[in-house]
C-alpha cells in the first residue's frame, strides 16, 4: 500500500465541521465490523451446512464419475459468482479438471432468449438445449426468489439433473419450491455477506468433491504436504 500518498486526504473539513480524519476513522471501524460479520457468517454457514455439503459433494462426485457436466447460473452479481464456480471446477489450479460451464457466458444467447421468450426462461431454455439426464444444475440467488433460477430448476429436475441451489435470507421461494436436491441457505439479509458466504460454501463443496474423486489410499493427512501425492496431481486428471 502506498501509505505516502494518503496524507493529502486529511486536509478537508466540510461546512458542518466534519473532517476527513473522522470520516476515515469511521470507515475503518465500519470495514472492521463488516469483515467480522462476513467471517462470522461464513463460519456459521460452513458449520450449519456441513453435513448437507458432504451429501451434496457425494452426489456431485458420483455424477462427475458417470460423466456429468455441471451448469451454473444466476443473475447480476450472482451470475459472476456462478461464473467463478464454473471456473473453479473447470480450470482452477490444484484439482482434477471437471466439465463445468456457466450459462451467462454468452450475451448473444442471453439476449436472444430474453428478447424472444422472456428473461424468466433465460437458463431453462439453455438447459433444455444442452443438458442431459445425469448432469448437474447449480444456481445462485441471494433472495431465493429469482424467477429464472427457479424455472431452470423446475425444468431440469424432471429431466433427471441433480439440482443444487444457493440462496440467502430465508431461502425465499427457492427453498420451498421442492425442486432442489440440495439447498444451501445463508441466513443473512445482506446481499454482499450472503455472496461471500456462498463463495465459501461453494469452495468447500468443490474441495470435498475433489477429495471424493481421488481414491482413498492416495489421500495424505489434511494440511500436510506429500510430494508423492503432489506429483500424482501434476498432470490434471480429466474425469470425463
Amino acid at each position, binding site marked *: 500500500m502506498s501509505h505516502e500518498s494518503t496524507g493529502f486526504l486529511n486536509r478537508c473539513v466540510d461546512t458542518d465541521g466534519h473532517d476527513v480524519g473522522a470520516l476515515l476513522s469511521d470507515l475503518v471501524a465500519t470495514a472492521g465490523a463488516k469483515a467480522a460479520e462476513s467471517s462470522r457468517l461464513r463460519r456459521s454457514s460452513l458449520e450449519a451446512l456441513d453435513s448437507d455439503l458432504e451429501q451434496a459433494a457425494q452426489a456431485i462426485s458420483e455424477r462427475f464419475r458417470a460423466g456429468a457436466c455441471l451448469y451454473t447460473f444466476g443473475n447480476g452479481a450472482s451470475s*459472476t459468482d456462478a461464473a467463478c464456480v464454473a471456473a473453479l471446477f473447470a480450470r482452477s489450479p490444484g484439482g482434477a479438471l471437471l466439465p463445468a460451464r456457466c450459462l451467462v457466458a454468452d450475451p448473444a444467447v442471453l439476449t436472444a432468449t430474453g428478447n424472444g421468450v422472456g428473461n424468466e426462461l433465460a437458463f431453462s431454455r439453455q438447459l433444455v438445449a444442452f443438458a442431459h439426464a445425469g448432469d448437474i444444475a447449480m444456481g445462485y440467488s441471494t433472495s431465493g426468489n429469482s424467477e429464472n433460477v427457479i424455472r431452470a430448476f423446475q425444468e431440469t429436475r424432471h429431466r433427471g439433473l441433480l439440482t443444487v441451489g444457493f440462496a440467502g435470507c430465508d431461502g425465499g421461494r427457492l427453498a420451498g419450491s421442492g425442486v432442489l436436491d440440495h439447498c444451501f441457505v445463508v441466513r443473512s439479509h445482506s446481499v454482499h455477506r450472503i455472496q461471500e*458466504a456462498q463463495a465459501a460454501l*461453494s*469452495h*468447500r463443496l468443490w*474441495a*470435498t468433491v475433489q477429495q471424493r474423486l481421488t481414491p482413498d489410499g492416495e489421500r495424505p493427512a489434511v494440511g500436510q504436504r506429500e510430494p508423492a501425492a503432489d506429483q500424482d496431481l501434476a498432470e490434471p486428471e480429466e474425469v470425463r
Partner: protein
Amino acid sequence: MARSDAFEARESERVSTYRLLATDDALSQDLLGPDAADLAAASLAMARRFASGATLWCAAPSWPWHAQHVAVDFVHPVIAGERSLPAVMVSGDHLWESLRPIARAGDMLLVVSRSDEPSVAGLRQRSKAWGVLTVWIGTGPRPEPGSADFVLWVDDDETVSSYGGRFALLYHLLSELTHVCLENPGLLEAEQAVCGDEVCITCSDEGCLGEVVAIRADGRAQVRTPAGLEAVDTTLIDRAHPGDLVLIHAGTAVTLVEGSPR
C-alpha cells in the same frame, strides 16, 4: 497452510487437492487488519473521483467475473436507492490499448489479479500517464511500493483468494465504503492536484509520466499526461515513437521509460 508454501506450490503448479482442504480456516478467517486503513483511504479517493464525474474501469485478466462483479455492484448497487455509478468491465487481450481511447484523466482503474499477471504492468503504467487512479486488489508476492495508488492484498492461496470469496469481501467493502463517503458531499472536494501544480501528487519531484501520442512537424513529441496534451522536447532521449512512455520534467522528456511496448 503456510503462505510461502502456498506460493511455492502454485509456481510449480503442483498443488495437492488435499492441501486445499486445509484452507477451510482461511475461508472463515478475519481478514482486514491493517488493510482497513488502506481500504478506507481508497474508498474516499474513489468517492471523490466519482463525485467529479469519473468512470471506474475494472479489469481482472485471469478472472473476468471479478471485474464484472465490481462493475455491477457500482452500476446497480445492492441497496435500493443508492445511486448508480459508472463502472465498466474491460476485457480482452489488449487491455490498455482498448482503454486508451476511452479513459480520461481523473478516471479510475480497479485491477484484480496476481502480482505477476503479465498484462497488468502495462495497464498500471499507462494509467499513471493518463492520470487514472489505480486500485489493485491481488494475491501473490506483494508488489513494489508505488505499483498502484492503492494496493489491497490477500496473502493467501489463489484458490481461496479468487474462488473462496476473499477478493469479493475486499471489493464489496470498497463499494460499500465508497457509498458511505458519497453521503458526505462536503468532504468530497479535494484531490484536484495533477501534474503541473506547484506540488504534484502524481509525479512529486521525479517528473511526470507521459505517453507519446505523435511526433510533431517541429520534431517535438505530442505527449499525453494527466494534465492533458503537451508538446515535449525529446532531444535528450534520442528518438521517441508514438506509444512510448516518457518521464517529463520542465517540458523535456528526460527518460524513455523501460518496458514501453512497441
